[in-house]
């Protein structure tokens, strides 16, 4: 189905495209970040650093000190 | 050459990493420019007339603020001692540091200019003119500001004192930067004359800045 977008079609298309682009960048950034963090964790695992068992995973101020 | 390249690369890396100040400068620029209409009112015609001046003032303040730590950080952790002792002349090291600072903190300001031009109702040509004058003029701001940053190390005082010292030095740059941009938008003048003076100012500061900064750093050895 072809819509008629009137004289300002380019503005409408641009705003939808920009929204798609920004959301795509967000998703891409989050996925790349996830991949790099898991890779670093794996590397640290390989070099023999492991967390003491029973220790909370995040380094909230109380658990890290 | 490797030494200078290493110094530039290190400074850019530090500026872009966590805790670095490069992007905060752009944010400051953005904030200052956005603040202006609240003071002068949202009259678009007025804003577009003031636009180049607002952008130039914003860029001036933003590059000044980030300059503050240029030598201070190296002084505090002892790096400056080693830089002074090295085989690289201190003048060249200063120039390399200024170049790194401009790449990390000055260029982003120019990249941000078109967006801000939109907010101030500048048309494409005017925005381009302001961006071009900033491109030609911000090196002068960095290289004269560097003298103040070096003095701040000597005097063990940063911040406001440095601003008071450096701002008067940057008046010529401001005059010709704004004049060249205005020439494109309204002016009876041609763009060429003030723009070439602006470029000349930048070139002169490229020479004077490193020497003055190195001299004041040497004086301040302690």
């Amino acid at each position, binding site marked *: 189905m072809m819509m008629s977008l009137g004289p300002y079609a380019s503005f409408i298309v641009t705003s939808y495209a920009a929204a798609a682009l920004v959301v795509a960048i967000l998703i891409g950034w989050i996925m790349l970040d996830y991949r790099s963090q898991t890779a670093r964790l794996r590397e640290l695992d390989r070099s023999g650093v492991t967390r003491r068992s029973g220790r909370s995973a995040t380094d909230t101020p109380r658990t890290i000190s | 050459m*490797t030494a200078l390249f*290493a*110094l530039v690369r*290190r400074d850019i890396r530090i500026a872009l990493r*966590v805790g670095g100040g490069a992007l905060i400068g752009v944010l400051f620029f953005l904030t200052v420019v956005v603040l202006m209409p609240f003071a002068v009112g949202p009259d678009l015609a007025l804003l577009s007339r003031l636009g180049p001046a607002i952008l130039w003032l914003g860029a001036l303040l933003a590059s000044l603020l980030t300059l503050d730590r240029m030598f201070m950080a190296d002084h505090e*952790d*002892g790096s400056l001692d080693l830089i002074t*002792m090295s085989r690289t002349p201190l003048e060249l090291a200063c120039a390399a540091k200024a170049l790194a600072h401009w790449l990390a903190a000055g260029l982003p300001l120019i990249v941000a200019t078109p967006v801000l031009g939109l907010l101030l109702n500048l048309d494409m040509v005017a925005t381009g003119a302001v961006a071009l004058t900033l491109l030609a003029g911000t090196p002068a701001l960095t290289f004269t500001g560097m003298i103040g940053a070096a003095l701040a190390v000597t005097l063990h005082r940063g911040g406001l004192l440095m601003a008071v010292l450096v701002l008067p030095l940057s008046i010529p740059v401001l005059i010709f930067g704004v004049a060249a941009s205005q020439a494109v938008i309204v002016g009876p003048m041609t763009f060429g004359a003030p723009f070439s003076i602006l470029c000349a100012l930048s070139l002169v500061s490229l020479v004077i800045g490193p020497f003055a900064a190195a001299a004041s750093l040497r004086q301040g050895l302690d």
Partner: protein
Amino acid sequence: MSGLGHGKIQLSGRGVACVRGGREVFSGLDFEAASGEAVAVVGRNGSGKTSLLRLIAGLLVPAGGTIALEGGDAELTLPEQCHYLGHRDALKPALSVAENLSFWADFLGGARGDATESLATVGLEHATHLPAGFLSAGQRRRLSLARLLTVRRPVWLLDEPTNALDVAGQEMFGGLMREHLSRGGMIVAATHAPLGIESRELRIGRAA
């Protein structure tokens, strides 16, 4: 390769005077140091130990007298042949251990040792990719020592070098200094604690 590339070198100061903040710290100081020799600068607090090192390093201008190095590289000035290890470590917390070291190696130039090997020697080989900000004071000091190994220079000026080092670190450092001396290097160290190697004492200031 000797690593230093020089024959015998001789550091000498004649009638050196130091004035800081309008106060005369010391004056008429004569000293000598030769290849393979360690000089321990001792004296009470405020007697000018650090100032003497900074004078030799060219970081302070003497109020009188001369300091000269004979037999070194004729093309280089005295400070350019010195390593200065001060109270501050000249490290950037945002950069990794390896980045910090390789920056100084690139920037200081001259004859280079192997950076990885130097890091292993000072016991930081597992930490190369960690930000220097994660290191403890002792580890930062070790990283500074790696700089002395990576960039070869004949004269080491050390200001309280064993500060922040644990017993094992001091032992390791003693080995490094002996190694440096045996290659014809020279050490001038300001210290309160024993240096850990055989050294000649240079007492400055009035005896307390």
